[in-house]
């Protein structure tokens, strides 16, 4: 009997090992590559002014990732997300795009919310020729300010949102409007687009009250609201939103007040039943995605809420006081499914296919309602790199936001300001 060891193999053993080696070598190279995960870099506002949004963006993206991987991944490949904090700062944001792309080897970068971080990071994404999918709702993409590599496929931009609101406000709440908004670009978009649309509807913005971003108390601004105001339009972002709405309530007390219409940004991550906010009863809000599950919600709403870990009131299932940023966070979910669709359509196999991937995204148009798009059906405009969907108007009833109107996509339509497809890569 011949004794074999690793050091003294038999001739048959050697032949089998050699054959197996040859077979492995003969396999097409891309078999190994296909098994490798697709890496998605996520530029996350974990710290800084956008932290409350970032927390929910991360949870929603994780939930979408699980749904995609449970469904077989993208083109059969598993998907990974690498989260990197950008401190809600454009300088760090640009560095994060660099790190995710060059150091971590991500195929695409996504997830940015705050406009200044998007605008500060987009040039670096273009230099690296990496698709950069933002979840910002800023008008910066559709305005033509950015580049061929930057797209916003998961959330309607603020210009379209505002345009869709104005006709309903003029018809239902009043025509003399006073606006209170933050004195920076996001607020200026509201000021400019709403004022123009209101004039078109036969209404008038009679006062524009801009609040400096460094402000932490707002009481001295409220006396500037003209007495003849029929509608008070407010939008505020950042850590001071709760102070803002509370002080607005203190200003009006229990006395007469105009109709109040706000963008939910003023109350994102804030419970409408918070003591001091009782005055909001009967007032209206724009919502992209209804925080409180509507009675006639679509068939995929429940599954989406369960996946993300949000209850029917829009708060975390594990902590009712942890209210989500429900009107924005769906954008990360929908962006991931948009990416899956484009990658599969383009036959994406790796970073060398990035240009092909952008072209495939630009070719996408109709995005029907489904588990991929729980907020609603959308249309993607490949020329402007911007997606458009329906919007909602809710009223606070019994301390909860109840949907009273849903716009059509046509309500938010405007002429294209750019055709990115004519630009070079």
């Amino acid at each position, binding site marked *: 009997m011949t004794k074999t060891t690793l050091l003294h193999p038999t001739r048959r053993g050697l032949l089998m090992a050699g054959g197996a080696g040859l077979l492995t070598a003969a396999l097409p190279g891309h078999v190994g590559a296909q098994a490798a995960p697709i890496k998605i870099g996520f530029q996350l506002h*974990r*710290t800084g002014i956008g932290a409350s949004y970032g927390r929910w963006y991360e949870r929603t993206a994780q939930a979408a990732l699980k749904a995609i991987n449970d469904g077989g991944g993208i083109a059969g490949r598993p998907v990974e997300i690498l*989260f*990197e*904090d950008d*401190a809600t*700062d*454009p*300088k760090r944001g*640009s*560095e994060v795009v*660099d*790190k995710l792309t*060059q*150091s971590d080897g991500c195929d695409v970068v996504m997830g940015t919310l705050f*406009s*200044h971080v998007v*605008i*500060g990071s*987009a*040039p*670096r994404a273009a*230099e690296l020729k990496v698709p950069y999918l933002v979840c910002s709702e*800023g008008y*910066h993409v559709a305005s033509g*300010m*950015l580049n061929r590599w930057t797209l916003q496929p998961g959330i309607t931009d603020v210009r379209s949102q505002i345009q869709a609101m104005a006709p309903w406000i003029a018809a239902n709440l009043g025509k003399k409007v006073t606006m209170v908004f933050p*004195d*920076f*670009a*996001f607020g*200026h978009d509201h000021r400019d687009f709403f004022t123009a649309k209101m004039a078109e509807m036969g209404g008038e913005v009679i006062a524009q009250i801009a609040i*400096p*971003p*460094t402000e932490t108390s707002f009481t001295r601004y409220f006396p500037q609201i003209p007495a003849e105001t029929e509608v008070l339009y407010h939008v505020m972002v950042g850590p001071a939103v709760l102070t803002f709405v509370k002080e607005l309530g203190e200003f009006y007390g229990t006395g007469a007040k105009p109709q109040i219409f706000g963008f939910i940004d003023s109350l994102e991550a804030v419970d409408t039943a918070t003591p001091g906010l009782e005055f909001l009863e009967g007032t209206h809000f724009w919502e992209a995605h209804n925080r409180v599950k509507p009675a006639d919600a679509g068939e995929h709403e429940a599954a989406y809420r369960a996946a993300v870990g949000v209850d029917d009131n829009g708060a975390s299932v594990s902590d009712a006081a942890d209210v989500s940023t429900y009107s924005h966070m769906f954008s990360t979910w929908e962006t991931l499914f948009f990416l899956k669709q484009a990658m599969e359509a383009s036959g994406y196999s790796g970073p060398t296919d990035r240009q092909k991937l952008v072209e495939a995204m630009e070719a996408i148009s109709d995005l029907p309602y489904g588990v991929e798009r729980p907020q609603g059906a959308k249309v993607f405009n490949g020329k402007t790199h911007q997606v458009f969907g329906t919007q909602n108007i809710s009223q606070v009833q019994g301390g909860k936001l109840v949907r009273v109107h849903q716009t059509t996509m046509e309500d938010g339509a405007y002429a294209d300001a750019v055709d990115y497809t004519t630009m070079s890569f």
Partner: protein
Amino acid sequence: MKVWTLHLGLIVVLFAAQFWLSPYHSTNLARIMVLAVFAMGYNLAFGYTGLLSLGHALFFAAGMYGAGLPAQLWGVTAGPALILGILAGGGMAAAVGLLALRTAGVSFMIVTLMFAQAGYLAILYFAAVTGGDEGFTLPAAARSIAGLDLSSDTPRFLAALTLFAVGLLVSLALVRSPFGRSMVAIRENEERSRMLGLNPFTVKLVALVLSGLYAGAAGAAYGILFGYAGASFATIQYSILPMLYVLLGGAGTILGPFLGAALMFALIEVASGVTSAYLFLVGAALVALVLFAPRGILGTIRERWAKWLP
């Protein structure tokens, strides 16, 4: 000779680094070199002249917008834009200095902070021109110099290195000159300097203007090399950063600002890879520095082992 060898040697090493660093690290080194120029400027005011300013973000932003706005509005190319940015930084420092240098110590710190905050709010107020908080991306024409595309890796690295090398050597020559010694004399004892015939106000104003020129150059270069100008660069965070770089590397040392900028960058890079609470680690490292090496790294080395370090 030893001093010049060290500093020229560093420039040679940095030049060579582009050949062995990955594109990612090479781009980060370009960022560090530009930020080090900002910190070198801060060091001239704080480290050598004793002017503890909390307003340098204003000078940095003046450079960034001084270069970026002409590029955006009138199509000015990178070379002239850079010069305009440097002049804007120096001009802003002169204007602030003429008023703020009537104060000293904590008052100077507060007055410079207020000027910087006013500058930040002015950028937001004139959003129609400046782009407000969102800022704007610089056009391609403004990112090219002598036919070199500064948005690509190698030209960007070389441009950052050139700016850094000029800043470093001018800084070295300056602090070894009679004027540099006047700066240090005023830092050490202003009254005695006055008795020796120096005019402290003039020396401090010139030092602050030089500091502003450096900050303006860094701001302009950052905008041009990385393609973006925005109001966030005018926030107080960008007044504190050069101070931290200088304190970490060693206030009143020529190489301290570069060392501090590089270490801080590396610290954030490494810590963010270890934990999502990376800012806690950065904070802990800075507290440890204050406790165990209050003069900064090079300051401590100079004190203990290498007294010849400038």
